[in-house]
């Protein structure tokens, strides 16, 4: 038995994955939309990492200038109600938006994938119960649920991440589950079972690798949803007051009458950053979808 195994394993698993990734990259790099998205996201990631070095003022430096002043040489985007430099705030805001977005999407995807795998593979009563719970969450408007949960749990970044993860895993679960269901019927699973492989083995060696690409494409879109959710929650005042995020900036802007005061420098930049970052992830997710879904291709 051992001989047969080692004879066929000329290419190691690692090399196989490497080849697959290289193939994918070859197609992906040709996709204009995908590349633009990647550039945007990388740009913001760089800003987030380098924030302390590139921002002219600190995140909590008050009264660096008169409050509510319009853009000037010292303050590229003017100042807020506490005299803080808005340009620096926007730079620091990148960190929270990215951090919360990616972390929440990660948790959400992991939970959703695990549940989708179990539900799709084992079927039967387990599937029924899990799907009923999933449906229950899917059916509710996520923002309302998030607001209520956030209100009950109180402010704090961990809570925000928790709240977003809880309300978004069902979408992933459903998608993964249907993928698993169609994979289950495929011949290679049946033959694997006929050889006598155990369930866990099949799940990890056969089903999971086929589900991973879908999981990634989905997670990317989840990140964009999470970023918008965090912004929305912060805007309503449910965010973490200890950190600046773009949503929080807009919250304070709104609270202090920036709209009526016509302070476009306070309002427009954080929103544009949100828009661009989300567009970046959506572009990546959309092009991954096009590549992975053969029908959408030419």
């Amino acid at each position, binding site marked *: 038995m051992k001989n047969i195994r080692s004879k066929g394993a000329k290419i190691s698993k690692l090399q196989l994955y490497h080849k697959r990734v290289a193939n994918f990259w070859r197609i992906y790099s040709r996709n204009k939309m995908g590349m633009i998205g990647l550039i945007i996201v990388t740009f913001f990631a760089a800003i987030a990492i380098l924030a302390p070095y590139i921002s002219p003022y600190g995140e909590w430096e008050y009264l660096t200038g008169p409050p509510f002043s319009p853009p000037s040489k010292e303050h590229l985007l003017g100042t807020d109600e506490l005299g803080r430099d808005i340009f620096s705030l926007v730079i620091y805001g990148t960190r929270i938006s990215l951090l919360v977005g990616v972390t929440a999407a990660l948790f959400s995807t992991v939970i959703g994938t695990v549940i989708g795998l179990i539900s799709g593979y084992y079927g039967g009563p387990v599937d029924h119960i899990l799907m009923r719970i999933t449906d229950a969450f899917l059916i509710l*408007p996520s923002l309302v649920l998030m607001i209520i949960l956030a209100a009950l749990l109180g402010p704090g970044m961990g809570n925000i991440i928790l709240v977003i993860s809880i309300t978004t895993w069902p979408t992933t679960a459903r998608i993964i589950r249907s993928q698993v269901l169609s994979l289950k019927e495929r011949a290679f699973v049946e033959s694997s079972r006929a050889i006598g492989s155990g369930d866990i083995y099949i799940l990890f060696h056969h089903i999971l690798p086929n589900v991973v690409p879908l999981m990634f494409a989905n997670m990317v879109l989840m990140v964009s949803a999470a970023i918008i959710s965090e912004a929305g929650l912060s*805007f309503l005042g449910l965010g973490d007051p200890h950190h600046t995020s773009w949503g929080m900036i807009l919250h304070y802007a709104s609270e202090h009458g920036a709209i009526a005061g016509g302070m476009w420098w306070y309002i427009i930049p954080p929103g544009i950053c949100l828009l661009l970052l*989300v567009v970046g992830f959506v*572009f990546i997710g959309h092009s991954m979808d096009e590549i992975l879904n053969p029908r959408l291709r030419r």
Partner: protein
Amino acid sequence: MGFREYVMRRGVECIVTFFILITLNFFLFRIMPGDPTALLLLNPKIKPETRELLRKKLGLDLPWHIQYFVFIKNLFRGEFGVSFHYGRPVMEVIAQRLPNTIILVGSSTLLAIIIGILTGAIAAWRRGTKVDKSLLIFSLATYSTPVFWLGMLLILFFSVYIGVFPIAGTTTAGVRHPNIFAYIVDYLWHMVLPLLCLVLIQIGSNFLILRNTLLDVLTEDYIITAKAKGLGSKIVLYKHALKPAMLPMITIAAIQLAFTVSGATLTETVFSWMGLGRLIYEAVLWRDYPILQGIFSIITITVLLANFIADIIYGFVDPRIRYERRAV
């Protein structure tokens, strides 16, 4: 399986989901830090007699598993307790705000669905052309825009700079309208910007979904046959391609309409539109838990009902579900 079995199966699933959600609602507000329900009794705005009445009605001194059944019973009677902030029954407060949300969000959803479908169809039919690409980019951009920011921009531009539309509110504050028409005009004038904001945001996803579904349908063999029949591109697109592609849209449209009740919380907040969505924001601000709980219940019922009706309609319209297979 036939239509009847389909309806019954969906009905049972709905009831199960309903109980899951109601249970969630019940526990959420009892086990969260601060025990909101206990706070209800401490509200100084309520008169002592009312407090006693509430205690009995909501069964707050009973063991919690009995409270659960009381809760459900009260739910069906529309009894959600009294608002902390307003001191009035929750149901009353909700009922007052509901129409504004339904009018605003209902209209925007309908408009967004229609426009989304038409543009999605055009884009899918002319896949790869400039029209398709620009519509795609436009939709992805609006899909990615935070709705509250868009609202702020609209106000900034149209109300503050140009001054054409009002900054906030459902109607102009402190004005007594001479007749119903003046009221309606004032109302609609205030509705323009929030409506625009919502429609722009909602178009994106409708467009994308319909475009994708239609692209799938257009690869089917029956479309090739329809073209070969010499029907002409208009008939092929609108009759043969759109009709199968619309089926999933029915469900999606129904779900979106179901979300009407939850309102567009962010939009209503930005525009100070006195609807249910803004009520949620206010309730969070004041930690007014009875209202939150009441809204949660209302939303649960509305959404479940809408989904159920949507499934029925879908089952009716899709002949594959309505008619069982007869021949072999």
